[in-house]
């Protein structure tokens, strides 16, 4: 069961540079929410604010509140490491750990948190995660082989399995298909549909067709003349693509800029 994610006045800085400003939106459980917008408008930045990955960058700061379920992850005394452990994240380029086997890649998270008590439980969790990532049948006979021997699409699904092994409530994906060929992308897109049954899925994409295909809700972001990204419009996907309220959204989805 996914968790509701609600951003309240989220702003983010890189050093002194303000990157996104006053983002307010609520992302629903068991739905796919897409963040779209031109390059550099702050989609990745916002996504990384959700699981406190933004602060990993030196001098990067966040303002505002982010509610995941009934916890404000930015309230005092919350350990960012725990927040990250409760959220799954998938990145733009497949980044499996090259020194680890397929099995060890998927088991990396559970081993850190020590959530499985023995080998049998871990085996089961790894299998379950790989099945959810629609990869089990392709790799079940080569779990001990290095993950980097797989194709790009398979590597990305390993990364999804690795994130799912945390048994997170929320899965964040940052342009997960932009480095993949169309067939591999298609498989990941198909997977999104299955994932939302159990998680809150939030995906960044700059591919509007992709958003239209897979997202239930779509948020359009744009950086204005001051280069600070803002939320322009947020609605169900159909509305955004057929009857957007904001002129800028319309311009963007009709390909007039970006």
């Amino acid at each position, binding site marked *: 069961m996914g968790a509701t994610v609600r951003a309240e006045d989220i702003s983010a800085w890189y050093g002194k540079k303000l990157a996104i400003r006053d983002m307010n939106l609520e992302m629903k459980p068991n739905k796919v929410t897409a963040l779209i917008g031109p390059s550099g408008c702050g989609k990745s930045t916002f996504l990384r604010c959700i*699981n406190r*990955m933004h602060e*990993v960058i*030196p001098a990067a700061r966040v303002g505002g509140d982010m509610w995941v379920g009934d916890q404000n992850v930015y309230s005092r005394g919350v350990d960012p*490491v*725990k927040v*990250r*452990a*409760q*959220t*799954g*994240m998938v*990145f733009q*380029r497949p*980044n*499996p*750990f*090259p*020194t*680890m086997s397929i099995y060890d890649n998927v088991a*990396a*998270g559970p081993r*850190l*948190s020590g959530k499985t008590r023995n080998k049998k439980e871990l085996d089961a969790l790894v299998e379950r995660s790989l099945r959810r990532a629609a990869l089990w049948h*392709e790799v079940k006979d080569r779990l001990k082989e290095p993950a980097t021997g797989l*194709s*790009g*699409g*398979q590597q990305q699904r390993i*990364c999804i399995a*690795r*994130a799912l092994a*945390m048994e997170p409530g929320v899965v964040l994906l940052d342009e997960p298909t932009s480095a993949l*060929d*169309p*067939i*591999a*992308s*298609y*498989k990941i897109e*198909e997977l999104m549909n299955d994932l939302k049954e159990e998680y809150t899925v939030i995906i960044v994409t700059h591919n509007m067709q992709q958003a239209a*295909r897979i997202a239930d809700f779509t948020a359009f972001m744009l950086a204005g003349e001051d280069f600070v990204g803002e939320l322009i419009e947020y609605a169900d996907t159909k509305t955004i693509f057929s009857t957007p309220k904001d002129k800028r959204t319309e311009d963007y989805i009709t390909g007039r800029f970006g």
Partner: protein
Amino acid sequence: MEPDAAGTVPSAEEVRDTTDPHTATEVPRTHAVTIGRDRSLAVSPAGSIAAWPAEIRQPLREPHPPARSFNVGDRLFSWLTAAFAGLILAVIAVMIATLAWQSRVTIQLYGLSFLYTSTWDPVHNVFGAAPAILGTVYTSLLALLLAAPIGVMVAIFLVEMAPRRVRTSLGFVVELLAAVPSIVYGLWALIVLVPLVRDHIQPPLIDHFGNTPFFSGYPIGLGVFTASLILSIMILPTIASISRDVMLAVPNSQRDAMLALGATRWETTWKVVVPYARSGIIGAIVLALGRAVGETMAVQMVIGNTQSFNLSLFNFGTTMPATIVNQFTEATGETYLSALIELALILMIVTIILNAIARLLVWRVTRVAGS
């Protein structure tokens, strides 16, 4: 274009299996077009691999020869650079050849036994290199034992913990350390390290561990221990700065992946960064070993220079370069000179091998990041 029937269009993974990995990411466009809203058409079911031709039909024509530059300057330049590269190889070959030629007397006289006999007696013209070789190995390994953990920790601190400004300035200082001439290290060791070791390190060690073979002897200050100590200080910058470069080459996406799983910085460093950079870190250590093996002045100034090998760290000893620098000017007679030059030959071959291994290991990590 649509697949004409289920089973004739291979899925992405199958295409990949039958083609070379470099072209594998290029999935034929014709299949790509079929992917769209209608998912039923997109990918054929698994098991269609049989439909994929097992043998690749060769194209009608051979590939054209690679393009040649028609620009005279370009061609001249490429010849010139090749010539210089060749020149460097030639210099190394000539050096090895001359050393081998100049040491032919002892090579013929002793053969391999030069390496494992331990009498070094210029008066009676008997030469065995074992004490120098063992002394070199002993001091170098000991120096590594001290410097490697500290050097790697310094690198980890610089790359993973320190704020950018500290990283730059401290990194600069570390590199300065590497640039200090070895005679300065030697003098400093004589003035500072020798009394320190004699008065504060040797007495307690001898008191407590004097009955082991490693710490027996008298508190003199000079000797193998002090030589290893100064060596470890001298090779520390090599280990630290190269390990740092190698760890900086680890992509941030690797760190992000681990951090996003709920790892601490510390866990990320040990479970992801260090394993990723492992071969490069080993390379840094091997390179430092090469430095230690070839280091001359500082060692010669504090090691005591006796042609004998003893397990005790507090004994005097020698190394190959120390022996050479110590005795070359007074070496009279063909055999004596030949023995010293043969030491140089051994030294050169060992350091070339160590350096080659080290470069290879470092390159294995940095090449990925560089591309």
